[in-house]
C-alpha cells in the first residue's frame, strides 16, 4: 500500500499543496481531478521523487520512504506529459535502454512482447522521430509497463490519443489493475475517469475538497454536474 500523509509543498512563497493525504492500495484505481493549477502534477512529482515535500511523509508497505528512494522509484511507473523517449533511437532501443536502467530480466523477450501488446511490433526498428503523438504515447506506455511496477502514475495519459489508442490504453490499465497494480490517474477527460477509475479525489487550490466512489453506471452527465458543483462550492 502506498500512503502519502499530510504532504505540504511550498515553492517560493506559494503554497502548492496543503496537508495532502492519499492512500492507494494495490489493485485500486484512483483518479485525481481538478482545475488547472490545482497542484495535481506537483503531487505526482512529489510521489515519484522528482521533488521533495516541504513536510509530510510517504509510506510504502508501512515503511517510511526517505529522500530519493530507489525502491520507490522501481515500484512506481510514471507516465508524464512527455514521453521521456529518445527520437534518434528505435522503439526497441529505447525500451532496452530503460530496461537496463530498471534492471529488467529477459529484456529482449519482454520488449518484444510489450511492443506487440501496444501494437508497435512492425515499427520496432524505425527511429521514433517519425512517430505520431499516438504512437509515441503507446511506446511511452510500454516504457512504463516494462519494469512491472506495483503502482502506475498516469498524468493525462489519454491526451492526443485516437479512439483505438484510448481503448488500448484503457484495456492495458484494466488488465494491470486486475493483476494487482495500483493505478493513480490525473485527467481532465471525465469519460475516461468514469470508465477506468473506482474512486475520485477533487483537488483545488492545493487541497482535497471532495472524495467519492465512482459508479460507472451513473453516466457522464451526473458526474460532470457533481464535479462542477464541488469546484464552484455550491
Amino acid at each position, binding site marked *: 500500500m502506498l500512503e502519502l500523509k499530510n504532504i505540504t509543498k511550498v515553492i517560493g512563497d506559494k503554497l502548492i499543496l496543503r496537508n495532502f493525504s492519499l492512500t492507494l492500495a494495490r489493485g485500486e484505481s484512483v483518479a485525481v481531478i481538478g482545475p488547472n493549477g490545482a497542484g495535481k502534477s506537483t503531487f505526482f512529482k512529489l510521489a515519484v*521523487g522528482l521533488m521533495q515535500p516541504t513536510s509530510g511523509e510517504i509510506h510504502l508497505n508501512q515503511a517510511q520512504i526517505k529522500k530519493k528512494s530507489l525502491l520507490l*522509484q522501481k515500484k512506481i511507473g510514471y507516465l508524464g506529459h512527455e514521453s*521521456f*523517449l*529518445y527520437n534518434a533511437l528505435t522503439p526497441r*532501443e529505447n525500451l532496452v535502454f530503460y530496461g537496463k536502467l*530498471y534492471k529488467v530480466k529477459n529484456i529482449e523477450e519482454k520488449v518484444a512482447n510489450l511492443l506487440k501488446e501496444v501494437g508497435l511490433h512492425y515499427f520496432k526498428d524505425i*527511429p521514433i522521430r517519425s512517430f505520431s503523438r499516438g504512437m509515441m504515447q503507446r511506446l511511452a506506455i510500454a516504457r512504463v509497463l516494462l519494469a512491472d511496477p506495483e503502482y502506475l502514475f498516469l498524468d493525462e495519459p489519454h491526451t492526443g490519443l485516437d479512439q483505438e489508442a484510448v481503448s488500448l490504453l484503457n484495456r492495458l490499465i484494466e488488465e494491470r489493475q486486475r493483476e494487482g497494480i495500483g493505478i493513480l490517474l490525473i485527467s481532465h477527460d471525465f469519460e475516461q475517469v468514469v470508465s477506468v477509475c473506482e474512486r475520485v479525489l477533487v483537488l483545488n487550490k492545493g487541497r482535497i475538497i471532495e472524495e467519492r466512489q465512482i459508479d460507472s453506471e451513473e453516466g457522464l452527465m451526473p458526474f460532470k454536474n457533481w464535479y462542477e458543483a464541488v469546484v464552484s462550492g455550491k
Partner: protein
Amino acid sequence: MKTLLADALTIAGKDLRNEWKSKQTIGMMIIFSSLVILIFSFAFDPTNNTVKAIIPGLIWVITIFAGLLGLNRSFIAENENDSLTGLKVAPIDPSSIFLGKVLTNLVLVTTVQIISIPMLFLLFDYRFHGQIIWFLLIVLIATIGFIVIGTFLAALAANAKNSEMLLPVLLLPLLSPLMIAAVQATRIVLEQEGIADAISWLQLMVGYDLLFFAACFFLFEFLMEGS
C-alpha cells in the same frame, strides 16, 4: 559501486549510439577543430621556428573550444521529450548520469584529439621527437579534468535560457589553472626539456582532477534535484 558503473555505461552507450546515428555533435567538433588548424596554419608561417612555440597552446585551444560544442549538447539533448526526467525517475543513482555523460564527452573529445592533433603537427610541419607516453598521459589527464568540470557546468547551464553562452563564461575561469598546467607540461614534453620539469605540472593536474571529480560527483545529485 558496480551498479553505478553499469548504469553509467548504459547511459554512455545510449548517448554514443544516439551520436553514432546522428553524427551531429562529433561532426561539428571535427569541422570546427579542422578549420581552426587550417586558419592558424595560414596565419602563421610554419617554416618559422618560433611558430613551434604556439603548438602546445593550440592543442588546448582546439580541445577546449571543440569540446565546448559537445558539452553544450550533452544535457540540452536530454530536454528532447523531457528524457532527463525519465532518467531522474529511474531507480539509478543521479551520480551515474554524471558519470555516463563524462564518459560520453570523454570519448567525443578524445576522438576529436586523435584526428586534430596529428593534423596540427602535419600542417605546422612539426616533427614529434618527445616522449609519446608522457605526451599522451598529459593530454589524457588534462582532458579528463576539462570534461569533468565541463560536464558538471553543462548540467548547471542546461536549464538557463542562454546556456550556450553561459557555459563558456562559467567554465573558462575555472579551467585556467588546469590549462596553464596543461600547456606548460605539453610544452616541456614537446621541447624535450626533461620530464622532471613537467612532473610538478602533472601533479597539479592530477590534484585538480581529483578535487573537481569528487566535488562534481557528490554535488551532481543536488543539481538534478534543483533542475
